C-alpha cells in the first residue's frame, strides 16, 4: 500500500546471516572448549 523503501530481502538475508553466524560461532566455541579440556587433561598428566 505504501511506497516504503524497506526491502523485505534485507530482513530475510539478515535473519539467515544471524542464524548462521550464531551456529558457526557456537560451533567454534565448542571446538575451543573440547580442545581446552584435552589440553587440561594433558597438562595435569604432566605431558605438556
Amino acid at each position: 500500500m505504501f511506497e516504503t523503501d524497506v526491502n523485505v530481502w534485507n530482513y530475510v538475508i539478515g535473519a539467515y546471516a544471524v542464524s548462521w553466524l550464531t551456529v558457526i560461532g557456537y560451533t567454534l566455541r565448542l571446538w575451543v572448549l573440547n580442545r581446552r579440556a584435552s589440553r587440561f587433561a594433558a597438562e595435569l598428566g604432566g605431558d605438556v
Partner: protein
Amino acid sequence: MQELKALSEERAPKWLIGLTAIAFMAVAGAQVFGFITSPAAEQYQHSQKIMYVHVPAAWNAFLAFIVVFWASLVYLWKRSEGADLLAESAAEVGAVFTGLTLLLGSIWGKWAWGVWWTWDPRLTSTAVLFIIFVGYLALRSFTEDPERRATWSAGVGIFGALNVPIVYMSVRWWRTLHQVQSSPETMSAEYVTALRVNGIAFLLLLVAVLGWRYRAARIQRRAEALHEEAILEGRQVHV
C-alpha cells in the same frame, strides 16, 4: 597418570563427527528446500521465510530447557555426575538458542510489526527465560565445589524450566501482539512441509551441539577428578 594421558588423547566418537556433518548439511539443505518450494506469502511476501529459522530455534530452546529440567531432577534423585553435566550442557545450548530466537524474532518484528521490541507477554517472558538461564550459568561459574554446584544449579534449573510452559502458552493465555502458534490448518501445505523439514534439521543440530558440549564438560570434570585422586594418593604431580 596413564588415565590422564589416555583422556587427553581421547578421540571424539565417530558418530558425533558424522552427526555434526550431517546436521550442517541438513540445515543448509532444508533452507535451500524452503527457499525453492515456498512461494512468497500473501501480505508477508518473502519475510515468511524467517519463520524457517525463528520457529525451529524456539523449538530447540524449549527442548533444551526440558532436558535441563529432566537432568536436574535425575541429579537430585540419583546424584549422578552425568546428569549434572548434561544439565550444564543443555542450559548453555538452550540459552544460545533462546538468544537466537529473540534476535530473529526482533528482525521479523521490525518488518512485520514495525518495531524491534515491544513489551508483549510472549517477548517479555522469552527474555525472562533467557536471563534466568544466563543466571544459571553464572551460578555455575561462581561456585567451585562440584557437588554443591550441581545441587544448587539443579534447583535453579528446575525453577527456571517451570517458565517454559508459561512462555509457550503465553500467546494463548494472554492478549499479545505475537500471533498464536500456526498449525497445518492455518498454513498452506508447502509452508507446513518446509517448516517441518527445517525443524528436523535443527533438531539434528541440537543433538550434535549437545553432544560436543557434553564431551568437553566430561573430559574437564574427569581430568579434575583424576588429578585430585593423584594428589590424595601422594603421587608425584606436575602442575
